[in-house]
C-alpha cells in the first residue's frame, strides 16, 4: 500500500474520506431505491472509483467546468451539487438538478459548471474541447475537465478531440477512468494498445497514468494537468487505473469476470485504503470513521426525504425546454 504523502493533516485526511463516503453512502442507497422502483431507467454506480472524482475535484475551482458520463453521481457530489436535488433528479421530480428531465444519466448543474452526464460513449469529449476553446478565446483561466471510461478511447470522438485540443493548445483535462471493462468487454478484448495514456503521444498530448485508487495520487496528477493547462500549454490526458466493484448497470449479471477478481480489487479499494492509512498514521480512529459515515447517512436520508416529498412536474409542461425560454444572453 502507498504511504500517506508527507504533510497530510488529520483535517485533510478526514475531508477526503468524508467526500468519498458521501458518494459511497449515497449510491448504496440508490441501489436500494432502484430495487424498490423509486429510481428507474438505467442506473450506473461509481462504487470503487470514488477516489478519482474526489481527488480531481480538490483541484478544480469555481471557474472550471466539468463534462461527465452516465456514471456521474460521484463527480456531481464531489463537485458540490447538493444531494437533495441530485436524488430528486434520480427520482425524476421537478426539484431535480435537471428539472427531473434527465434522470441518473443526465445530471446537469449550471451553478457548478457541470455540463452534464452524457450517455453517448465518447460524446462528452468534443463538448469539453469546445468549452476549453471558449475559455481560451475569452482569455479565461478556467479548464474543462472531461471524464470518460476507457471504452470511449475506441471511439473516433476520442481521437478527434485529442488532436483538436492539442492542435489548438486548449485547456482541457481528459480524465480517463480506466476500470478495465466497458460493459462486458474487457480492455484487452477491445484495444490493441491497452495503455490508454500511450495513445495520447500520437497527438502530442501530455499524458500520465496514475493509481486511481489513491486519492492523493489522483489529486497530484490533476494538479499537474491543471497547472499545465492554465499556463496555456494545452491538454493532458490522465489515465486513472481503477475498478468498478458493482455491475455495469442494474441489468448486468457480470458473467464476464470472476468474483475473485472483484474481491481482490475491493481489498485495495479507495475507501478502505485511505481508512487504513489514516488509522495507521494515527490521524483517525474507528469512532471518527463511524461518525463520518453516520453523517453521510443522515445527509443521504435528508436527500431521499426531499426527493420523496417533491412534486412531479405537471404533464401540461411536457414540451417545455425543447427550446430556450429566455433570449440569448
Amino acid at each position, binding site marked *: 500500500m502507498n504511504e500517506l504523502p508527507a504533510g497530510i493533516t488529520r483535517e485533510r485526511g478526514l475531508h477526503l474520506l468524508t467526500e468519498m463516503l458521501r458518494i459511497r453512502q449515497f449510491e448504496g442507497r440508490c441501489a436500494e431505491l432502484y430495487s424498490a422502483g423509486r429510481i*428507474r431507467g438505467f442506473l450506473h454506480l461509481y462504487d470503487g472509483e470514488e477516489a478519482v472524482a474526489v481527488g480531481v475535484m480538490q483541484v478544480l475551482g469555481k471557474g472550471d467546468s466539468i463534462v461527465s458520463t452516465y456514471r456521474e453521481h460521484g463527480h456531481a457530489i464531489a463537485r458540490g451539487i447538493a444531494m437533495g436535488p441530485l436524488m430528486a433528479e434520480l427520482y425524476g421530480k421537478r426539484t431535480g438538478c435537471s428539472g427531473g428531465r434527465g434522470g441518473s444519466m443526465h445530471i446537469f448543474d449550471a451553478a457548478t459548471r457541470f455540463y452534464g452526464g452524457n450517455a453517448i460513449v465518447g460524446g462528452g469529449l468534443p463538448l469539453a474541447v469546445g468549452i476549453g476553446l471558449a475559455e481560451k478565446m475569452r482569455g479565461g483561466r478556467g479548464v474543462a475537465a472531461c471524464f470518460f471510461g476507457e*471504452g470511449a478511447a475506441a471511439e473516433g470522438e476520442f481521437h478527434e478531440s485529442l488532436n483538436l485540443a492539442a492542435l489548438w493548445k486548449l485547456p482541457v483535462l481528459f480524465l480517463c477512468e480506466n476500470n478495465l471493462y466497458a*460493459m462486458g468487454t474487457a480492455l484487452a478484448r*477491445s484495444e490493441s494498445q491497452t495503455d490508454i495514456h500511450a495513445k495520447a503521444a500520437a497527438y502530442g498530448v501530455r499524458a500520465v497514468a496514475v493509481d486511481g485508487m489513491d486519492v492523493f495520487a489522483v489529486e497530484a496528477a490533476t494538479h499537474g494537468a491543471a497547472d499545465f493547462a492554465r499556463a496555456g500549454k494545452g491538454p493532458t490526458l490522465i489515465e486513472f487505473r481503477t475498478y468498478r466493484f458493482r455491475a455495469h448497470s442494474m441489468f448486468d449479471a457480470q458473467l464476464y469476470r470472476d468474483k475473485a477478481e472483484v474481491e481482490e480489487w475491493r481489498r485495495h479499494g479507495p475507501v478502505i485504503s485511505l481508512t487504513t492509512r489514516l488509522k495507521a498514521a494515527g490521524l483517525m480512529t474507528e469512532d471518527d470513521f463511524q461518525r463520518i459515515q453516520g453523517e453521510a447517512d443522515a445527509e443521504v436520508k435528508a436527500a431521499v426525504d426531499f426527493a420523496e416529498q417533491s412534486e412531479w*412536474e405537471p*404533464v401540461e409542461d411536457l414540451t417545455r425546454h*425543447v427550446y430556450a425560454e429566455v433570449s440569448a444572453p
Partner: protein
Amino acid sequence: MTTGTGTVITYREAMKQAIREALASDPRVFVMGEDVGKYGGCYAVTKGLLDEFGEERIRDTPLSESAFVGAGVGAAVAGMRPIVEIMTVNFSLLAADQIVNSAATLSHMSGGQFHVPLVIRMATGAGRQLAAQHSHSLECWYAHVPGLRVVEPATIDDARGVLRPALACPDPVLIFEPNSLYNMEGELTGAAATADLSTARVRREGKDVTLVTYGASLWRCMAAAEQLAAGGVEAEVVDLRSLRPLDDATILASVRRTRRVVIVDEGWRTGGLAAEVAMRVVEQGFYDLDAPIGRVCSEEVPIPYPKHLEDAALPSVERIVTAVRRTMGDAE
C-alpha cells in the same frame, strides 16, 4: 425453414433462432457488434452464440460504431454476409456516415458493379425510462434514404422470419427491433416462412377505419381496436413491416374499404413516416376518403425520463382511440 410452428417463444428468442439458423447454414454469415459475444448482447439476443459458433463468427467489437459498421459494409462488398448489431438506433448516429454515405450508395456509385449484402440490426423505441439519448425512434431517417431497405418486425413470426430474406438480399437491410417487444411472447404460426422485405400485413380486419402503424405501436393499435370495437367501431390494423419500400397497395386497399385512416407512429410528427404514408394516401386515394387523415405520433420533445412524462410523449391507446373517434366525426 424449421420454425417450430406452434411453440411459444419470446421475440428475443425468435431473433436468436433466426441468427443461429443463418450462422449454421451459411459460412459467410458472421455477427459483430458491441458486447454481442461474452456479454451475450445488450438485449441478450445473441446470448450463447459465442459458445456455439466461436470468436471468429461472433465478434465482440470495441466501442467504435463507425468502424465496425463500415467494416460490415466492406466485408459485405467483399463477399461475406455480416450481421452487424448496433445497440440502439441512437448510437447508430455515430455510424450514420457509413450507413448513408457508403452502404446506401456503393451499388449506385459503382454503376451496379458492387453490392452491399449487409444486415444491420438495432434496437429502437421508448418505454423504459431511458431518457433522451436512449429512447428515440429514428427509423424514418433511414427510410428516407434510397439504397437502404428498412424493416421493423413487430410479431414473433416476423422476428423469426425476416432475417432470411434480409441476408438473401443483395442490398443493405436495416432491421429495427423495438426494445419493448423483446420479452413479448407469442406462438410461431408458420407465417415466419413467408416474411419478406416489402409487404405490409393486415393484422386485424375492420370496416370503419384503418390504423396504419409499425413496430411497438402495432400492439397499442390492436388494444385501441379492441376498445373501439366495444363501442361499435371496427378498426382495421395495417402493420407496415417494411418502412422502405412502403407497401402502398396494401395501405390503399384497406383505405378504400374503410374510407378513413389514422396513422400511428412512434417517431416525431414533423417530417415523419406518418406524413409520408398520409401523402401517399392523398396522392392515390384522395377521392376514397370520407374524413381528414389523422396522425398519432410522439410529441415533439426529446423523451423525458419521468414515467408520466414519457408516457405522455408517446402514442398511447387512449390517444389512438381519441384520434379515431375524431376521424369518425364524433364530437369530442
